[in-house]
């Protein structure tokens, strides 16, 4: 039972790491600010959820699991607002310079 739990937790951690990797590859490879944000926010939030779930399983305590859930919700919130601000800013910059919407500012 405990072996099965550990294996499942390890699998969740690996899945989380994979999502982070995918998000980072997207951040580096995608051409403009909006699609980079798309890659980063979606993949990283799922990755963090998966890693939090894996850690909670390993800890095996309700208190720790709830704390990890709170951490995930806070990170989700911060990611939402910062992604929103960056997207807004890059749209405005694009409007100012008259270029295509979503072009990276630098």
């Amino acid at each position, binding site marked *: 039972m405990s072996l099965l739990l550990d294996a499942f937790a390890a699998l969740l951690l690996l899945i989380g790491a994979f999502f982070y990797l995918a998000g980072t590859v997207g951040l580096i490879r995608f051409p403009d600010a909006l699609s980079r944000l798309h890659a980063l926010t979606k993949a990283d939030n799922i990755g963090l959820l998966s890693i939090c779930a894996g850690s909670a399983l390993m800890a095996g305590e309700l208190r720790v699991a709830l704390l990890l859930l709170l951490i995930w919700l*806070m990170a989700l*919130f911060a990611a*939402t*607002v910062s992604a*929103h*601000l960056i997207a*807004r*800013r890059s749209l405005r910059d694009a409007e100012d310079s008259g270029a295509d919407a979503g072009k990276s500012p*630098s």
Partner: protein
Amino acid sequence: MVIDVFLALGLVVLAWQALIGGSLFRGIVMFIVFGMVLTLAWAWLGSPDLAMAEAAIGAGVTGALIMIAYWRLRRINAVEPRDPSPARSRLALVIAVLATGLVGAIGLAAVSALTGDATAARVMNETLPDTGLGNPITGVLIVFRNLDTLLEVAVVLAAYIAARAALGRESADLPLPPAPDTPLLTPLVVTLAPLTMVVAIYLLKAGSQYPGGAFQASALLAALGVLLVLTGRVGPAAAANWLTRAGLVIGTLVFCLVGLGMLVIGAPLLAIPGIWAVYLIEAAMMISIGLTLVLLFAGAPGLSGKRS
């Protein structure tokens, strides 16, 4: 071993990226990433206290301070020097290689000379339970070597005074970027402000037994202050009101009063009478350091209500 090499190499590469070549903006971003990787390095080396301090202060607050200075310099429209200076690079290379060799030699010699009988730390670990504290670092900071910590709080206060003196009377408050106009900011502030305060107080309380303490808590408060300033919820004031002044000096004052008060009851100077005194001093330090960092970020002598 693999993770050691990975983190150490990552630090060096990120420092390279932050310092050599590329635009300054890119360098600042790389420097913040460097701080985050250094956070991981502290955690991996076994020091969660340093990891927290590095993440909050080393990467977070320092990064915010450098970013806002960068923004202000762009606004002043000062002449940007071209980096790097080619005239000095050859001599610099020699000096840098020599310095690298020197630090490496000192470090490796120190490691090979490690005898493992760190007497001071061992004695400290043995005496720690008598103080009622569980976190050796808080023990050193507040009980065993608290003269250092008292002076540190005084240095942070001195940095504020010196920064005010450097900026002079004409520029009582430095420019700040306009607050972004988005409906998301109000829920962000309303949610984060109370939560950050709770977490800061928790860190302060937990710091007596577990990793955490006044410095990490003050960095969290400073981060909240920076958020409030950037979102325009708090604005710069041309002069510090009495509340700001009290907040600035309360850390040094409470520390001194407790330390001197010990003389009155016949105990040695700066002795700590009990765990309540640790909490009292740490709470005062948290307020002072956090407020000072926010004021240094805002570049103003004081804070007022809503910024237009």
